[in-house]
């Protein structure tokens, strides 16, 4: 019962944040002097054409009505124009790209597998290697393993990921020819090639963050392993692996979960960069193209989608947090 209440409170909080983010994004992109209708009206743009474009896009209405349409479009979908020329944008409608003549949601979904493959793999890789590295260096404090993990962490934070990525392409791709230098192969087409093409992007994105996580886990682990309840657990006659994992690691992981939630946003930015470095046509490449072609609907739609994704991911992390740390539910 208490768990249910905890979930519901978090859910309500998330929905409020989502609505606010949507409203702010809308205000910044559509109420500022940029005029989407003007941009897509073409040249020469007669006043009549402009008016037609405005009415079609729905930007002729007063701002509060536009905002209402925009928000309800996300929930129940909407349509643009009327009669035969009308286009339907099914829910969740993040806008309609008039340049590509397709709903933004559809465009995002077509690119989503690429970005998701990069991001999820990188996140898993850095979580697993980072936490494992941290635990090992905490248990083997002062040895060379410990020292080298910590040195990588310090040097690593200063190297931008694209630099690491390009050097990795140069070394593993061109010099050694072990791995492909770029491109993306869908998982459904050829799982082995999919994996081979993703190894470098994953390692590039995970390398630095893993070192930071190792440093954090190490500090937490050292602190937790000195607690009284660890001594109690050992005195009860528990085996060492069980002491380390269920009593030590579970408590040491609490701050790691927090930081992980916060790093997801940065991860999305990281994939935008990785897509350029490894020439993959994912969401980041789509965003950059949309900025260059001034496809404002796509830019706004994607930004909003990214914000939603991160807010939702943080909601999930919050729930996990509730399970890992029993004190959260009570508070």
């Amino acid at each position: 019962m208490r768990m249910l209440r905890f979930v519901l409170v978090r859910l309500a909080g998330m929905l409020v944040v989502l609505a606010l983010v949507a409203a702010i994004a809308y205000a910044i992109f559509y109420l500022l002097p940029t005029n989407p209708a003007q941009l897509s009206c073409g040249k020469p743009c007669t006043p009549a054409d402009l008016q037609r474009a405005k009415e079609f896009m729905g930007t002729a209405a007063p701002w509060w009505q536009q905002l209402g349409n925009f928000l309800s479009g996300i929930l129940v979908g909407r349509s643009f124009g009327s009669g035969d020329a009308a286009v339907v944008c099914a829910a969740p409608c993040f806008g309609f790209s008039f340049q590509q003549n397709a709903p933004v949601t559809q465009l995002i979904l077509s690119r989503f597998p690429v970005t998701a493959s990069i991001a999820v793999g990188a996140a898993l890789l850095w979580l697993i290697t980072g936490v494992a590295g941290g635990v090992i260096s905490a248990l083997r404090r002062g040895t060379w393993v410990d020292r080298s993990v910590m040195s990588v962490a310090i040097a690593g934070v200063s190297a931008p990921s694209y630099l690491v990525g390009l050097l990795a392409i140069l070394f593993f791709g061109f010099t050694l020819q072990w791995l492909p230098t770029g491109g993306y192969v869908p998982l459904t087409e050829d799982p082995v090639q999919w994996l081979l093409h993703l190894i470098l992007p994953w390692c590039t994105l995970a390398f630095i963050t893993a070192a930071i996580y190792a440093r954090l886990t190490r500090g937490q682990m050292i602190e937790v392993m000195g607690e009284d309840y660890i001594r109690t657990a050992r005195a009860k006659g528990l085996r060492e692996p069980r002491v380390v994992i269920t009593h030590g690691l579970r408590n040491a992981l609490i701050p790691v979960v927090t930081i992980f939630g916060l790093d997801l946003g940065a991860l999305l930015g990281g994939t935008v960069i990785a897509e350029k470095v490894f020439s993959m046509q994912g969401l980041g490449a789509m965003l950059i193209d949309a900025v260059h072609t001034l496809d404002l609907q796509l830019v706004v739609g994607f930004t909003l989608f990214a914000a939603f994704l991160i807010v939702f991911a943080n909601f999930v992390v919050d729930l996990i947090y509730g399970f890992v740390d029993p004190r959260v539910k009570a508070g």
Partner: protein
Amino acid sequence: MTTANTVEGEPITARKTGIRHVARSVLRDGWATTGVVIIVVFALAAIFAPLVTGITGQNPYTYHLNLLDDSGAPKGFGGGISAAHWFGVEPLTGRDLFSVVVYGARISLLVGVSATIVSVVIGVLVGITTGFFGGWYDRLLSRVVDVMFGFPVLVFMIALTAIVPSSIPRPVFMIAVIGFFGWPPVARVVRGQVLSLRERNFVVASTAMGAGSGHVLFAQVLPNVTATIIVYTTIMVPSMIGFEAALSFLGVGVPPPTPSWGRTIGDAVGWVQTSPMYLVFPGAALFLITLAFNVFGDGLRDALDPRSGGRRS
């Protein structure tokens, strides 16, 4: 949400914060001194860029097509390294890479430092007012900070470049955007410190003697968070430099022909195999300045607050 900020919530004890003490302490730290030297060298190179490139008589804008082969790659060793072109020349254009790197320091440092100042000013104002006044104002802004903390800021910055009016100079716009998204960490740390300062006797005494909130905030509280602010400013510069480079790398930052390390690295993507030195020189410059600020920030933190040494995660 809690974070791993180690400065937050710690009691603030008396410590020597005199400039001379700090300077001596930083200079004793070999790494931090190296950092300072690198920062000074880059800053001087940026300021006196025309003089520095004048040594070889080059500039970052002149094309040298005669130094390229048929495919557009530079002729000769290491991307065309010679007495006249210390770092070789750019593929396709033959512009002097040494000049590009030296002039690139200008935009990098300008945007990096200015954006940091914007972030720190907003962050400090929000931090001391929320920490001091509390109430619904604090709850609202702390929630904003929570939400902004995990946001995909790079995606937002890229998106905003789509709507910037061309009347605003690009560097100014970049400073504003990068600076605007950087303030939440500063606000959170400063707020934490102010929360504990608010309960201290000298603040309570000052309020009891009838001092206005403005006086207490800026004359009593602010001087006590200066050390934290200075450390945070130094630590933030490299990430701000990184954002400028990342935006330019992605092709939505500083427009050509203004030299920018990020853009040069972005251009080098297609030349990694044929002309790797094109990537190495601007990349090394970017790495060095970032590392320099990081180790200097670490040293400064140790000097100002010895207890935090090596504990940051």
